[in-house]
C-alpha cells in the first residue's frame, strides 16, 4: 500500500516537473520543422521566387489590361472588356505580397551580408514591380510598405513620389550591380541571365527609359531623358528580359487561357482592333506575324472579337499560338520595346505631334529595328521580314513617319504586355495614334462615354486599409498624374 502511495506521488511529482520543464512545451516544440525559420533564409532561395512572380505578374495584369487596350476581348463581354471597375486583385497580391515583399527582404539581407550584387538585382525587380503597380492604381504605398506587423495600414503616396522611388531604386541598383566585390552573387538562381550582371544593368537603364517616356506628356525633356537612358539599355533580342517557361512550369497564358479552350472554357481572344492592325484591314499590308499570334482554326479569315460584344471572332488564343504555347516566354523588357521608345522619343523630341508627319532618321531606323526585333523573336522567316519591311505601308521613309505607325508597331510588339494600356492611356485612346480606336460596345454607362483610365483598388484593400483607400480613390475615368 505504502509503495503504491510512493509510486503515485512520485508520478504526480514527475508530472509537475514536466509542467515546469521548458523542454516539454518550449524549445523547438512549437517550431515548424517543415518551414524555414528566418535565420536560415538565403538570397539564392528568394531570387527565383521574385523573378517568377514578376513574370506571373505580367500575366495577371495583362489578362485584364489587354482587354482594355483592345489587344483582346472577352467572350463574356463584361468586366474590363466594357470598362467596368477593374481591380485586378491577383496583380496587387502578386506585386506586393509575392514580388515586392521578397525583393525587400532580399535588399535587407544583401545589405546585412555585404552582397551588393544581390541588392542591385532585387532593386531592379522592385522598380519593375513598383512601376507596374503605380501604372495600374496610381497612388500606392511604398515607404511604409513591407513593415508588418509594425505598420498594418501603410500610407499611400502620390504617383509622382512613386515614380521618384522607382528611379531611386534604379539609381541605387546600377552601382550595386557594378560593385567590385560582393560576398554572394547570383548565378543559376537567376532564372533569366544566370548571373550576368551586365545584362541586369541594361535592364536598369531600360526601365529608366521606360519610366521617362511614360512622362512624355509632361514635356519633351522626358523624351530626351529616355534617349539618354537608352544608350545603356537592352541592345539586342538575345538580351531580352524574359522568363522562359517550360513543360513543368507552364506559361500562364498557356495554362489559363490556351488549355481551357480544349475543354470548352473560352475566356478571352484577340480583339478586332488588334487583328485589324495585322490582317490588312486598317493598313493595306498583311502582317506575317498574324498566323503566329492568332489561330483561326478551320475558319477562312482572321477576324477578331469586337470589344464588348462577346462575338465576331474567328480566332482564338489556342496553345498553338506563339504567346499561349507551353514554353513561351513572358517578355518583360525587350529590345523591341527599347527601339519603339527610341522611335517615339526621337519623334517627340524633334517636335513631333500626334498628327505631324516626318521624323528624324534615328526615329525611323529605330522603328524598323523594333519591327525586325519582334519578328525575329517570333521566328518569322527572314524573307517575310524583309518583305514586310519593304512594303510601302511600312517602309514609309523618315519623312513620312507618323506617331501612328510607330505606336501601331509598338502595339503589336507589346501584345499581351501591360505597357500597351499605358501607351493607350498616355495618348488617351487617341484614334489618330491608335487607328480608329473606339469605345467597346455595351460600354460602362457610369463612364458617360469616357475611357477607363485606372484600375480600382482591390476589394481586400478596401476593407483592410479603408482610410487610405478612401483618401486616394478617384473617378475611374479620370486620368492619372502620369498622363497629365
Amino acid at each position: 500500500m505504502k509503495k503504491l502511495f510512493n509510486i503515485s506521488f512520485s508520478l504526480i511529482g514527475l508530472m509537475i516537473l514536466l509542467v515546469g520543464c521548458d523542454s516539454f512545451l518550449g524549445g523547438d516544440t512549437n517550431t515548424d520543422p517543415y518551414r524555414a525559420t528566418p535565420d536560415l533564409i538565403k538570397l539564392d532561395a528568394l531570387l527565383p521566387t521574385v523573378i517568377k512572380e514578376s513574370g506571373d505578374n505580367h500575366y495577371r495584369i495583362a489578362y485584364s489590361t489587354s482587354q482594355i487596350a483592345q489587344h483582346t476581348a472577352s467572350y463574356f463581354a463584361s468586366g474590363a472588356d466594357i470598362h467596368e471597375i477593374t481591380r485586378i486583385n491577383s496583380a496587387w497580391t502578386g506585386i506586393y505580397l509575392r514580388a515586392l515583399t521578397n525583393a525587400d527582404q532580399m535588399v535587407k539581407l544583401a545589405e546585412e551580408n555585404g552582397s551588393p550584387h544581390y541588392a542591385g538585382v532585387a532593386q531592379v525587380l522592385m522598380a519593375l514591380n513598383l512601376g507596374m503597380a503605380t501604372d495600374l492604381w496610381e497612388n500606392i504605398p511604398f515607404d511604409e510598405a513591407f513593415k508588418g506587423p509594425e505598420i498594418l495600414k501603410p500610407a499611400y503616396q502620390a504617383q509622382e513620389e512613386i515614380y521618384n522611388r522607382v528611379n531611386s531604386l534604379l539609381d541605387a541598383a546600377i552601382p550595386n550591380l557594378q560593385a567590385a566585390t560582393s560576398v554572394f552573387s547570383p548565378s543559376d538562381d537567376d532564372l533569366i541571365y544566370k548571373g550576368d550582371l551586365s545584362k541586369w544593368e541594361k535592364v536598369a537603364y531600360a526601365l529608366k527609359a521606360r519610366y521617362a517616356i511614360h512622362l512624355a506628356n509632361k514635356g519633351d525633356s522626358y523624351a530626351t531623358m529616355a534617349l539618354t537612358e537608352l544608350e545603356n539599355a537592352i541592345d539586342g533580342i538575345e538580351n531580352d528580359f524574359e522568363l522562359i517557361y517550360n513543360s513543368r512550369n507552364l506559361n500562364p497564358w498557356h495554362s489559363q487561357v490556351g488549355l481551357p479552350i480544349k475543354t470548352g472554357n473560352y475566356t478571352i481572344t484577340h480583339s478586332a482592333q488588334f487583328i485589324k492592325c495585322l490582317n490588312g484591314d486598317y493598313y493595306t499590308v498583311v502582317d506575317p506575324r498574324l498566323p503566329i499570334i492568332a489561330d483561326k482554326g478551320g475558319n477562312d479569315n482572321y477576324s477578331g472579337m469586337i470589344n464588348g460584344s462577346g462575338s465576331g471572332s474567328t480566332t482564338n488564343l489556342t496553345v498553338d499560338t506563339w504567346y499561349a504555347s507551353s514554353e513561351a516566354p513572358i517578355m518583360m523588357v525587350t529590345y523591341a520595346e527599347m527601339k519603339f521608345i527610341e522611335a517615339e522619343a526621337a519623334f517627340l523630341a524633334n517636335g513631333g505631334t500626334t498628327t505631324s508627319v516626318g521624323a528624324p532618321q534615328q526615329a525611323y531606323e529605330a522603328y524598323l529595328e523594333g519591327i525586325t526585333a519582334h519578328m525575329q523573336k517570333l521566328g518569322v522567316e527572314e524573307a517575310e521580314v524583309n518583305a514586310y519591311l519593304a512594303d510601302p505601308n511600312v517602309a514609309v521613309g523618315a519623312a513620312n513617319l507618323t506617331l501612328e505607325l510607330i505606336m501601331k508597331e509598338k502595339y503589336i510588339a507589346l501584345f499581351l504586355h501591360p505597357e500597351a494600356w499605358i501607351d493607350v492611356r498616355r495618348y488617351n485612346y487617341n484614334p489618330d495614334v491608335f487607328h480608329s480606336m473606339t469605345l467597346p460596345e455595351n460600354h460602362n454607362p457610369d463612364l458617360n462615354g469616357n475611357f477607363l483610365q485606372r484600375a480600382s483598388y482591390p476589394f481586400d484593400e478596401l476593407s483592410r486599409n479603408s482610410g487610405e483607400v478612401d483618401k486616394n480613390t478617384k473617378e475611374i475615368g479620370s486620368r492619372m498624374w502620369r498622363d497629365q
Partner: protein
Amino acid sequence: MKKVFTTCWFVTLCLWSTLSWAQNKVVKGTVTNETGEPIPGVSIVVTGTTKGTITTGEGKYTLQVPEDAVSLTFSSIGYMDMEEQIGQRSVIDVVLVENVTQLEEIVVTSFGRQEEKKSLGYSVQSFSSEDLQEAKQANFLDAMQGKVAGVNITSSGGTPGAGTNIIIRGITSLDPSASNQPLFVIDGIPIDNSTNAGSMLPSSGSNSAGSSEQFSFSNRAVDINPSDIESVNILKGPSATALYGLRGANGVVVITTKRGKAGKARINFSSSYSWDQVGKTPEVQSKYREGRFGRLRFNSDGSPLRFQTFGPKVSQYDPVINNMKEFWETGHRLDNSLSISGGNDNSTYYTSVSRLDQNGIAPNSEWNRTSIKLNGSTKFSDDLEVTGSMQYINSQGVRPNGGDKSIMSALSYYTTTYGTDNYVNPIDGTQVDYSDGITDNPRYLAEFANLEDEVNRVIANVGLNARFTNWLKLDYKVGIDQYTDKRRRIVPADADVGRQVKGFTIENKIQAREINSNLLLTAFAEFNEDLNMTVTAGNAITETWSESLNVRGEGFTLNNFKSIGNTTNYFTKINGSLRRLVGLFADVKFEYRDFLFLNLTGRNDWSSTLPKENRSFFYPSVSLGYLFSEHMNLQSNFFSYGKVRLSYAEVGKDTDPYLLGYYYEPSPGFPFESINGFRKDDTYGSDRLRPERTSAIEFGAELKFFNNRLGIDATYFQQRSKDQIIRLPVSNTTGLSRYITNAGEIENKGIELLITGEVIRSNNFNWSSSLNFSKTEGEILSMPEGLEEIVFFDGTYIQNKIVKGGKVGDLYGHKFNRNQQGQLIIDKNGLPSVNTEEYVKVGNAIPDWTAGLNNSISYKNFTLSVLLELKQGGDLFDMGLRNGIRNGVLKETELRYREVIFKGVTETGEPNTKPVEINGENLYRSYSRYNSASEVILQDASWFRIRNVNLSYNLPKQWIEKLKMQSARVSLTGNNLYLNTPYRGYDPEASQFGAGSNAFGFAGLVIPQTRSYTLSLNVTF
C-alpha cells in the same frame, strides 16, 4: 489564482486524513441484481451511522464495521434500498431488487466518471448501445442524427465512409479555419476525430475551391465499430466539459465501450445487410433534346457539337434519360460483428471482431472496415485493478469524387438525350462522352478517376485503479491512438481535371499519433449525515503529432499504367504538426441531503502553441443542481420530480501549432527547371497571442410527472467567446496577408428541450415517446478593428460571411433589380436583370430550429420505433444547380419558346407590358438576367423527414432456450424513408465541404444522401 487553488486542495486533503474511526470487524460480500449480474457502485452503510463503502466494478465490497453494528443498509440508484442484519456473518451477499419507479439515470461525464444525472448542474444527453444500433449506420454519429438537442450532426453525403460533421451549440470561432468539432473520448482517453482534407488537386486545370469538397473524407471516429459502444454521452457546454479544459471547449463526445462481466462467457453475434438507394434527386426536363437555339449543332467539319440541352423538341423516337437519378446504383452493406465477453471475480474480458463491407451508390465506390478489440481488467487485490484495451482498425475504400469537375458536376451538365453507360472506348480505354470532352462522362470518372484510401489504426490504453483507503482512490490511464492514412488519387489524362497536366496521380501519406496520460485522485468525505463531498484532482498530459507527405506526379507516359513512376513532373509537399498540452485540475462536489449539489472546478492548462508568457491559463466553473421536489417534499402522484440547474463556466482555447512569428516556405510552382525558390510566409503570428476565452451560463429544469412517466428537460444557454485567435486579414502592402492576433467576440445562445413520455405502460403493450427541440443562434458582437467582414467561403454566387452584428451562417448574394416598392424592374427587352455588382444578405444557413420525435411501441415481442425529424429554415446553395439551369437540364428550364410578360415595372416605373419569348439564351443561360440571382439559386432547405423506422422482433423464450441462446432478435430498419422539402436538388442533407468544415450553406456537388433498408439479426449465447 492557480497557486491558491493548489494550496486549498492540499489543505483539504490533510484535513480528511485526520478523519478516522475505530474499526474492528470486517464484512465482505457481493451485491447482485435479480439476474445474478453484479452491481457496481452500491453504497453500503452501517445503519444509523455514516460509515460505509461502495461496491467495486464486480459488485464486491469489504467494510470494517464496529462490533456494535446491527445491520447494513445497501442502496443503489435504480434499486430498492435494503437493510441486512449482520449477526455473526462476515460474508453478506445480497440481491437488490430493481425499483422501476425510482430508476435513476447514470451518465458518464469527464474522465469516464459515472455520475447520477440528478446531481449534475448542467445538461447531458446519453445514448445506449440500443439507441445507436437502431439506425444501422456505419458511422455511429449518423445514428444520433435527429436525436440530440443543440447538436448539429451533418453527413457529407452518400459516399461510403463519408465524414460526418458534428457541431455542438454552434460555431464559436470567428476564424474560418478553426476547428469547431468536439473532443472524442473513449473510455476516458481522447482519440483523434480529425478529418484530413489533404491536398488532392493538380497544379493547374481545376477550379475547385478546396479538395475537402471532393471526396467526403471520413471523420476518424468512423473507425469505431458501433457494436463495441456501450454508451455515448454528449457533454455540451463548458460546465460539462470543464475538466477537459481547452480540448473540450467545443463540447465532448464521451464514448464508453463494452466490458466483460463476471460470469459465464457471453457470445454476441450481430449481422445486418443493407440496401442503399439514392434519396431525393432533382427533377429534369423531358421536352427538349440536346442542342442550342432550339436546334442541333454541328462543328464546321459536320460532326455533332453537343453540350447544352436547349435543342429541338423531343420526338417520339428520342430517349429522355434522367441521369441524375439513373446514374446511381443500389449500394449494399454487409456488417458482421462477433463479441465474446465474460470474466470471473478477478478478471473480465471483452473481445470483438467486426467487418463491414459496403458498395456505394456511385459505381465502383466502396468502403470496408475491419476491427478487432480487446478490453480487459484484472484485480491484483481488492484495492488494485489494472485495465487495458486495445483496438486495431483497418478501413479502406474507393471514393468517388465530388466538387468541381467531378461526377457530380458532370451529372449537373449532362444532357437528358444521352445516358452514361457508353463511357469507355473498348479499343484504347479512352473516355467516351456525348459532348466530346466539353464535360466528362460521370461513369468514366467513377470507374477510372477516383481515390483509394486505407487507414491502419491502433487505439490502446492501460489503466490502473488503486484504492488507498475507503475514501481515497487513484486512477491512472495512458493511451495511444496512432494511424496511417494512405491515399492515392488517379486522374487519367482525358478527364477534364487532368487534361491540362496530361493526367496525374497523388500519393498522400498521413501519419497521426496522439498520446494521453490522465491521472486522477478522488477523495470522498462525509462531514455529517447531511453533507458529503467528493474531490477529484488530476493531471492530463497530451501530445498530438501528425505528418503528411504528399507527392503529386503529373503527365502519364504510358496511357494505361496509372502509377506515380509513370509520370513526368513531380511535386512534393510535406507538413506536420506537434502540439503538447499539460493540464492540472480539481473538481469539488458537495452533496447536501440528496437535494442540493454544488460542483466547483478549476483547471490550469499549459499549451505549447502559445507564447511562453501566455502559455499558462486558468479557468473555473461552478454548477448547482437543486432537487426542489426532494427538498420541499413535493412528490405526489402528479408531480414526481423537479430539479433546477444553474452553471457558469469559463474555458480557454489555445491555437494551432507553429503560428507564432513567421517562416519562409517553398514557393508554389517550384522547382523551376531545377532551381528551387522560397518566399516569405504571408502570415505572421503575434508573439503576444493569448488564449481565447469562452464564458458560458446555462440554466435548465427537469420536471417529471405522473410517476416519472412524463419528463421535461429544458435548457437555456448563452456563451460568449472573446479574444478570438483570428487570422486577421491585413493589407497585402504590409508584406503580410494575415496577422494572427486576439480580437472579436461572438455570442451563441439557444434553447434545448427534451420531452419524454411513457404514453402506455402495461405488460404486453408499451408506448414511449420522446421529443427534442433546439434552437441555436450565433451573433457577432464585435469584429477586429478595421475589419468589416470575414468570409467563411466564397462560392462566387453565394458567399458565407459574417459582419459585425450579423449572424453565424449568413449568406450573401446577388438579387434581381427591384424598385423601392420591391417590384421587379424589367428592361426594355422585357426581361429582368440581376444586380451583380452588389452582395447583399440573402439568407442564413443555420436552421431556425430543429426537432426530432421518436416513438417506440412494443407489443409482446415486437418493437416498432419511428424517428421523425423536422428542420425549419436554413438556406442552401446548390452548387450544381446553375450548371443544370445553364445547360437546360433541369425541370425549371422546361418553360421555353413561350411568350410571357414578366410581372414588374419598366425602368421608368410603368407596369411592364412587354412580351418576351423565353429561351435558353435570353434567360436561363444569362448570368446578368437570371442564373446569378439568389432568388433562383438559393433555396430554403427546411425539411420534414422520416429519419428512421425500426421494427424488431425478439424470438420467444421457449425457442431460444432450445437453441441455447439468451436472446435473439431480428429487425428491419429503414433510413430516410420519406423526405418533404421545398429544396429542389438532391437530399439537402449533404454538406459540401465535408466533416470539420465551418462553411455552411453549400451543397449539391457531393455524392447524394441515400435511402436505406436493413435486415439484421442479433443473437446472444
